[in-house]
């Protein structure tokens, strides 16, 4: 963690104990100061702070919600044209801004292999607007717009982006910091389109106590719900530690969004996780 300088200032307006703010601080530290960030509307934009203050010690451009990847592309090209080719252009966007409204622009930027690092802070819902579902919200999770539980499964962003055959696509979890930092540093050194899908529990949106965020981010990986892996050039898969070793039930307990799940639903989720894990192993 030699690069760790505090590029996120104290006093930002995220919820107390927010795991996303913690992860943002570490990601910024690994990127260093020669970076310009693109941050669309999301909880991250709240952390970036109100004008004339800024929560980040690097320049931030806050684009319209659907436009993060397109905005980052334009910024990248301008910096290139102005001879600032070494400056990193990074997107910090939520899952809603990435999986949903910003997806068309993201797919296009990936196809063009724009030289940007896109970090999706995946808290599995539209948290800034009060916790509604996104297409990243998992099966059966309750949100403001799915009060009876989401009837469909989580979209697999990392796999879709890897299918664009971009140089680097990886998952990461805020519960496994050394793995996250290694991935940010690795991605930083690669040119072209890079994506990190970073799982960040949202205390409020998931209904978890302030001191349980990191524990859940670890459980998501240990139960195989959110496996850690990297995909290079769309086909070289690497599975990262730790592997799936616990039942999914351990992850579901203690999250209000999964309250009152019957045994049949838990079994369904376990089967989905087992099948997903097997499919992932088959790609290695």
């Amino acid at each position, binding site marked *: 963690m030699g690069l760790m300088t505090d590029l996120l200032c104290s006093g930002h307006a995220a919820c107390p104990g927010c795991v996303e703010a913690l992860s943002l601080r570490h990601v910024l530290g690994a990127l260093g*100061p*020669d*970076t*310009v960030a*693109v941050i669309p509307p999301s909880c991250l*934009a*709240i952390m*970036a*702070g*109100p*004008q*004339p*203050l*800024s929560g*980040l*010690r*690097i*320049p*931030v*451009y*806050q*684009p*319209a919600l*659907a*436009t993060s*990847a*397109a*905005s*980052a*592309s*334009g*910024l990248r*090209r*301008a*910096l*290139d*044209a*102005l001879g*600032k080719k070494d*400056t990193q252009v990074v997107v910090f966007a939520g899952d809603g801004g990435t999986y949903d409204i910003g997806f*068309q*622009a993201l*797919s*296009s*930027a990936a196809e*063009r292999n724009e030289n940007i690092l896109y970090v999706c802070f995946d808290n599995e819902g539209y948290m800034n607007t009060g916790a509604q579902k996104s297409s990243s919200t998992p099966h059966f999770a309750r949100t403001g717009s799915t009060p009876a539980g989401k009837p469909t499964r989580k979209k697999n962003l990392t796999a879709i982006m890897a299918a664009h055959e971009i140089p680097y696509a990886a998952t990461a979890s805020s519960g496994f910091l050394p793995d996250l930092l290694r991935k940010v540093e690795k991605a930083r050194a690669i040119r072209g389109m890079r994506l990190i899908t970073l799982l960040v529990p949202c205390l409020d949106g998931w209904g978890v106590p302030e001191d349980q965020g990191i524990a859940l981010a670890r459980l998501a990986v240990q139960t195989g719900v959110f496996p850690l892996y990297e995909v290079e050039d769309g086909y070289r898969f690497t599975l990262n530690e730790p592997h799936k070793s616990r039942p999914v039930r351990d992850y579901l307990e203690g999250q209000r969004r999964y309250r009152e799940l019957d045994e049949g639903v838990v079994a369904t989720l376990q089967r989905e996780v087992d099948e997903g894990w097997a499919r992932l192993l088959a790609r290695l």
Partner: protein
Amino acid sequence: MSAAETRSLLTGNHAVAWGARLARPKVVPVYPITPQTPVLELLTEFQAAGGLDAEFLTPESEHSVMAACIPASLAGARVFTATASQGLMLMHELLHYASGARAPIVMANVNRTVASPWAFWPDQTDSLAQRDTGWVQLYVESAQEALDTVLQAFRIAEAVSLPVMLNLDAFYVSHALEPVHVPPQALVDAYLPAYAPEHFLDPERGESWGNVVTQDMYRRHRKSLGEAMARVPEVAAEADREWQALTGRGWGITERYRCEGADLVIVSLGSMCGTAREAVDALREAGIAAGLLKVRLFRPLPAAELRAALAGVRDVLVLDRNFSPGAGGVLHQELRGALYGMKHAPDVRGVLAGVGGVNVSAAMIAELARGARIEDIVPEAVWA
């Protein structure tokens, strides 16, 4: 006039592309749409042949095109793009974003009908529907004016930190071939020096854009945007005067054609003005004191100029090649607003002429003008 100027046969679209090339933009995000596509094609050919050293982006939509334009401009690069019709509609959210960001982007828009139903004809509803987005709007009548206006547009945009849209009618201007003077690069470089903004996104400076503001900051920001707009008529007139000094060609922010002693003046935008000139000539020959007032700068509307130009005129006939359902012709409304409260204001009649691209001949315009002198005035625009 410069000796090194070359004369070529160009369409309006190709004249726009030549103007853009001479402006030396550094970033060009662009998406194809009929009838703008030849602008895109010629620009990419220029780049491939080494005549234009710019970063080209061809994203998946016009929404992403304008999204890319804004931070590219905020990073300190000169940015050009072009679109039409549905493309402009798709950009709407980001048109506001661009002016709010005070990004001096220049965009050519080829005026084409908006769907549904689908059509490809000249109609200015697309750009006029963007009148509240904070973009400066200019309307041109010919290929030569299009080329010259691209360069003037950058001068205006960068002087007031506002985006500028220049509009040319589909086919009548975009596809019509005309002899066009292409000025030498050195002349343009002297007229339009490299873009060097005071503020730009850069890690060494740490400035940001877009963070949430308070009510009062937002209000102040909007007010300053309005102040920048208010400077545009003078800035645009000066940019045009300087261009005229260098090339011999000036277009004015408005143009008065045979308005001396006129008691009837036709007012319009874009290519309709070319036809109206012929109608004015015919009317004058028939002994009717008619003139034409061409509105080249539509946003901001140069109200003081318009009032001065129409002082003492008895009848005004506005020809609108656009339609705002429930309101009528946009220029008609705007002009009535600009003249309201003026002592001895002329009677202003509005005609929806050429909506959907239907042909409007000089004879028709002359006929409408004759009618305007004898029929009672009605507040609503009427269909031609």
